Structures are given as structure tokens and as C-alpha cells.
């Protein structure tokens, strides 16, 4: 994967903040990037480091590399149960906490990029911190870290990161697809270099991006869509060159795909003499149109040839009526993978596919990742998680025996 090791100018990257928010920013060499309350840094300070590097913002928009987004080298809380009070017994007024660190002190430490020190001193200066319950302590520390840790991490903007960005911002933009569902789709669809896939992608191109990552510039993806143009905006922030995308990705709308016979561009080549007589602008116009027509015809040829290596479907178009109409374009023993945010829709699809002899063993999967707090001594699953994440239907395209097919031996 080119460009996924070193933080370079001109790339879009993912910035992670201590609040667990993420941003996508473009690294323009001479610019500064504002992270709101976490401060502003100049891009030049972060170039050349490896992706995954964390930084702390100092004065004058300078940064220093730090080992992690949150300084977990020094345990903030002792492990002994006595460090947290049993149910805030003696903590009468949680509103007015006695703070021994002055605002001036805090500002001074901030300038020195010592966010963690601030927090430690705040805790030390917080008379009733030890009297808080464990939950209050955790919550309090989190708030303080978000406030005083002027840190950020720069991550490579891969498909997973793009998905995370969109899902946090507006889950419907990516059909509420979780990273674990994405991983499951890619495995069941058997995505790998050299494959030729049909993709229906209403995640704005995030799914396409994820497939491209696993194909290493080899193979092809035909994107089928329902509008005049497919929405593949996510690729604009990827590091794929227009040439590579041109080579690997093509698209057709459903009208073209399903009614190829009537939708072929009717192209008549001019006789050479006529071409020779064209003015230069007319000629280049002619040639451009010719190339475009050829391109559509070529794509339609590949659809007619069929034998695609998989169908990957993540669309709000209702699958039960659509999928059976495109199954014939798939090769034998190739996967059909359908994603939906709703199990009910896959259940309807399941019943349709189960009756189709071109389909073997449809299965509906749900995968959910549950994250834990990993502070030793207080390990527990996170108290809240984002709901949803979607469902994945996987089946295999098979070639039924003509004539007498019985149900025996069919899953």
C-alpha cells in the first residue's frame, strides 16, 4: 500500500482526539490545522513521522511526539480498592470541588505541553477525589483528559478509518456499517488481487475503497448503481491515483446493466477520410466520444460474458427482486454477499434465495465487537456502545444440474 507508512504532505489523514472524536484533514505543507479546544498545530511539525504517531501541542503551534494519546505509562489510579471511596460516602457536595491548582498554574503547565502533569496535579490538589466512587473517578478523569490533554494522533486514512469517520458523523451515510461487518463482508466475498467483482455500494465508496485495499492494483470492480452517477465520494480522500481507478473501476446504472441490449451506445465510426477532414478540436471531440462509447460497450461486453468472481451488495434497493436478476453474471462457486442494516430485509432475501437453485446455503450473520476498558484492576466492558452495525447474508452461486434436481444433499 503506497503512502501508508509515513505521514506525508498532501494526504488526507485521520486525526484522533482524546475525546475519541475523529477528524479528516488534508495535510497542506504550509498550513495550520485547528483542533478546536485541543489547540492548533502547524502541519510541517507532523510530517515524516510514521502513521499512528501521537503528538502533544506546545506553544506557537509546535508539536512534540509523544508515545500515546493518553499517557497510560503512569497509572492514574492506584489498584488498591481503598483509593476509591465506597459510594461517595463522605463526598457531600460534588458540585464545588476544592481545587488547589490555580488557573494560572494550569495555563503555565499547558504552555509547556504538560497536560498529563496538569491532570495529575489536579487530582493531587482535589481534596475529595479519593472520596469519589470508581465511576465518578473514571468520568472525572476522562473529562479532564479531554480538557487538558492537547494531544492528537495521526492515522492513515484507510477504509476502516473512513468508515469509522462516517459512522460517527452520520451512520446512515454508510448504511450503519460497522468495521466488523466490513471485515466479514471482505472475508466472505473472498476479496483478493486479481478478482473481478460486481459491487453495489451505497456507502459513498467506502466499501469500494476497502475492496481496492485488498486487491493491490490487480483485478476489476464493476459498480452498479441507480442514479446517473454513482456516489463514490470517499475515494476522493483515498490515495488512489485517477489512473489506477480508471483502470480498475467501471460503472453501469441498472438500466444499462439489466437492459444491455437496448442500452448500447449506437456508435458508427467515421471513415478515416472524414476524420482526417475534421478540425483539430472536432477531431479530439470525436475521439473522446468514441473512447467513451467503446468503454460503455466494453463494460456491457463484460456483463454479457459474465463469470464475475463475486457480488457484493450494500444498497437500499430491495434485494429480493434484484439479486435473482443478476445471479447469472456470476461464475460458479463464487460468493454472493449482501449487507443490510436490517435483518428483516435479509430474511426476506433469504427466503427468495433459498428457493433459487443457483444459490447454495444462504446464511445470515451478525457480528458485534464489544470493547473493554483495559485499566488493570478495573477491567469491564465499556458501559455504552453504538447500536446497530448491520447484518451480512452470504451464499454461494452454484450451477444446478439440469433436469432432475432433488432437495437431497442441499443445505
Amino acid at each position, binding site marked *: 500500500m503506497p503512502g501508508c507508512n509515513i505521514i506525508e504532505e498532501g494526504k488526507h489523514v485521520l486525526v484522533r482526539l482524546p475525546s475519541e472524536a475523529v*477528524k*479528516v*484533514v*488534508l495535510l497542506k505543507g504550509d498550513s*495550520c490545522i*485547528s483542533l478546536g479546544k485541543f489547540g492548533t498545530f502547524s502541519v510541517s511539525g507532523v510530517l515524516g513521522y510514521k502513521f499512528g504517531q501521537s503528538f502533544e501541542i506546545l506553544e506557537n503551534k509546535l508539536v512534540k511526539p509523544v508515545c500515546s494519546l493518553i499517557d497510560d505509562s503512569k497509572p492514574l489510579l492506584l489498584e488498591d*480498592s481503598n483509593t*476509591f471511596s*465506597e*459510594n*461517595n*460516602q463522605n*463526598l457531600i457536595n460534588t458540585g464545588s470541588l476544592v481545587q488547589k491548582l490555580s488557573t494560572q498554574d494550569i495555563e503555565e503547565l499547558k504552555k509547556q505541553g504538560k497536560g498529563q502533569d496538569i491532570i495529575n496535579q489536579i487530582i493531587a490538589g482535589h481534596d475529595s477525589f479519593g472520596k469519589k466512587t*470508581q465511576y465518578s473517578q473514571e468520568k472525572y478523569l476522562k473529562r479532564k483528559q479531554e480538557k487538558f490533554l492537547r494531544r492528537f494522533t495521526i492515522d492513515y486514512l484507510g477504509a476502516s478509518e473512513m468508515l469509522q469517520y462516517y459512522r460517527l458523523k452520520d*451512520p446512515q451515510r454508510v448504511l450503519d456499517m460497522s468495521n466488523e461487518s466490513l471485515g466479514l463482508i471482505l472475508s466472505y466475498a473472498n476479496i483478493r488481487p486479481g478478482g473481478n467483482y460486481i459491487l453495489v455500494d451505497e456507502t*459513498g465508496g467506502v466499501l469500494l475503497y476497502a475492496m481496492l485495499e485488498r486487491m493491490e492494483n490487480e483485478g476489476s470492480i464493476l459498480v452498479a448503481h*441507480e442514479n*446517473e452517477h*454513482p*456516489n463514490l*465520494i*470517499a*475515494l*476522493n*480522500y483515498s490515495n488512489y491515483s*485517477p*489512473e489506477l*481507478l480508471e483502470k480498475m473501476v467501471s*460503472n453501469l446504472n*441498472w*438500466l444499462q446493466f*439489466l437492459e444491455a441490449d437496448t*442500452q448500447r*451506445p*449506437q456508435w458508427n465510426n467515421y471513415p478515416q477520410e472524414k476524420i482526417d477532414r475534421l478540425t483539430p478540436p*472536432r477531431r479530439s471531440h470525436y475521439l*473522446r*466520444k468514441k473512447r*467513451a*462509447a467503446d*468503454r*460503455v460497450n466494453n463494460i456491457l461486453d463484460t456483463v454479457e460474458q459474465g463469470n464475475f468472481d463475486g457480488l457484493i451488495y450494500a444498497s*437500499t434497493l*430491495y434485494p429480493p*427482486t*434484484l439479486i435473482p436478476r443478476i445471479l447469472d453474471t456470476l461464475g460458479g462457486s463464487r460468493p454472493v454477499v449482501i449487507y443490510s442494516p*436490517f*435483518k428483516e*430485509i435479509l430474511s*426476506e432475501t433469504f427466503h427468495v434465495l433459498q428457493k433459487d437453485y443457483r444459490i447454495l446455503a444462504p446464511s445470515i450473520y451478525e457480528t458485534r465487537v464489544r470493547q473493554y476498558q483495559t485499566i488493570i*484492576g*478495573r*477491567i*469491564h*466492558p*465499556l*458501559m455504552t*456502545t453504538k*447500536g*446497530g452495525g448491520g447484518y451480512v447474508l452470504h451464499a454461494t452461486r452454484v450451477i444446478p444440474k439440469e433436469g432432475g434436481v432433488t432437495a437431497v444433499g442441499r443445505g
Partner: protein
Amino acid sequence: MSFLYYKDVIEEEDLVMAFISRNDIKPMIVKSGETLNTRYGVFPHDLMIGARYGEQIASAKGYGFIHLLQPTPELWTLSLPHRTQIVYTFDSSYVVQRLRVLPGSRVIEAGTGSGSFSHAFARTIHSNGRLFSYEFHKPRYEEAKGEFECHKLPNITLTHRDVCTDGFKVDGVNVDGDAVFLDLPAPWEAIEHLDEVVAKDRRVSICCFSPCIEQVVKTIEALTAKNWNGIEMVEVSGRKWEAHREMVRDVDEAVARLKDIKKRAVAGLERKRKLNQTSDEFENEDIDIQTTEENDISHKEPAGKGETDLKPKSDQNTKDRGYNPFGKGMRIREGDPAYNWINVTRSEPEVKSHTSYLTFAYRNQ
């Protein structure tokens, strides 16, 4: 005693849960002359007195409505300001069933916390059971005490006490508990004090409620040391599902729409040609080609800002959309009978993925 018995008509001094919305349920004692102010209007208590529980009433000005509900422990839990970690209904309902808490049971609860579980215990043990609840945080103790009195729950004996150091004995009463619920940071310190207050003549069950796995380990060790049997640890994971409808978007309609777009584009080109008076020297049809060329996904949006906002391009044509089977660009009410729908469910956007680990055990001697 509205938590223990149903009542039909609301009287002065009754507790009413004003259901304003799913996320706004206000408990109140009905008092002649007072008013309830909500974002849906002002509701004089006088309108409530004499109304039936469950009734929907209009605001003084008649434009907003609320429902007047009977209190239940579950509704009370929903209405609570989150003073402390609350034991929610998924956990509490399981604990009650699993500890075999029934009318007449004698339950030990420490700490009282928000008192929400106390209400659920009180409802189930009912008038001839008894709940011994212990809270060592003085302000919380005071608050719970007031609440239990106001809610007419005489079957609760509330004690201000740190049970880890001072145990569970209550002056002048034989606690004789048969079910124990410990929601404490260090339940293992309390377990040793249980011997003196749990029933000797019948099986005693315990549940310790701890968020962290390390607390569970210490609890298991303490329970084992004090001869509790049948130790089991579980998590209860509860989900609330929202039912919705999703539009069934048939591909045939999508194809029909594309045909319509194409037809209109061709017509548009014809018009344009005529307007421009240009004789077309290419016979080839433009539409497909144009579509394909503009599809070039390598096109990069200029991104000059510090932060890039990865928004999809907004739809340009907001006026006449031609054939529009899915109501693109229109506001469509979920379930609008002009479209086809399928019933779907989805979980809440934010799920409570963990409350606490529940460690159960019992003892026979």
C-alpha cells in the same frame, strides 16, 4: 401505597407520574392549586384531581397533552435523575426472579443508592415482606428516607450504615433475611457480616453487583471462604428495539426512473440543439457517453480547507424530478401509503453494553 396497589381515580396527595414524553416522565404529588409546567403547556393539578389514572389530559390552553400514570417501580426508574448508577429493569427483574424474591420475602439490600431497586423489591415482597436497605452516604440516605415515606412504603427498613465495617444488624429486629443484594464497591468486605442476619431455617440467596471483573474475583473468593455454594456469575444484556418501516425500493422502479431521466435528457438536448441552431454532425447518441464520462470517479473535489468535510454532493435538481417512484428529495412520512414499506427493527443508537457483573450464590445452613 400506590406502589403496592392499583387505584383508579386520582385524589389529592396522590403520587402521579406525568408522562410528557418517553424521555420526560415527571413524578409529582398532586396538590390542589399547584401546576405542572412542561414544554407542552401548563397543567393545573386541579385538572388531575378526580381524573382516572391513565387518562390523557389537555393543558390549560388546550393545545398540549400528557398522560397521568400510576407509579410503578419501572416507571420510577425511568423518571429518576441519575444521582448514582441505577440498577435498571433488565438487571433488577432478573435478580428478583433469580433470588426467588416473593411476597413475604425478607430482603437485605446494600447500598440503597437511588432507591430504584428498593421500589422493585418493595413491590414484590409486598405488605408482609420486609426490605432491609442500608446506605452509608448521608445525603443519599436522607433522600431515600424521604422518598420511601412519601411513597408510602412501610415495608422498607432503611438504615444509615457502612455495612462493610458495621454489619447489618438492626436494633430490636431479627433481620432473618432470605435474599441478599450487595451493590457495593467492595462486597467482599460485607459478606463476612452476613452470617448474623441471614435466615437459618431456609435457603438464603445472594447477588453481588460489581462493574469490574477484579471485584468479581474478590467476591468469589469471599463467598467461597464463607461457605456459600453454587457460585455463578452472569451478565444481563438488555436491548430495547425500535420498530420502523423501510421503503421497499424495487429495481424496476429504479430502471423506470433511469429511463425517464434519459428520455428527458434526450428531449433537453434536442431543445438545446434547436436553440443553438447548430447542425449536429455526430449521429452518435450523446447520453450514454456523457453519463460515462462524468462518472469518472478519479475526479477530486478541491479540498482547500484545514478540515475536510466529507459530505456527499447535494442534489442539484430540486424542482421537477420527473418520474420519482421513491420520493427522492421529498419529505416522506414513514409508512406513507403511496409507497411500499417493510417493517424493520433497530436497536437504540446508544446501547447500554454493560452495567455490572452479577455474582450469585446460595447457602443452606
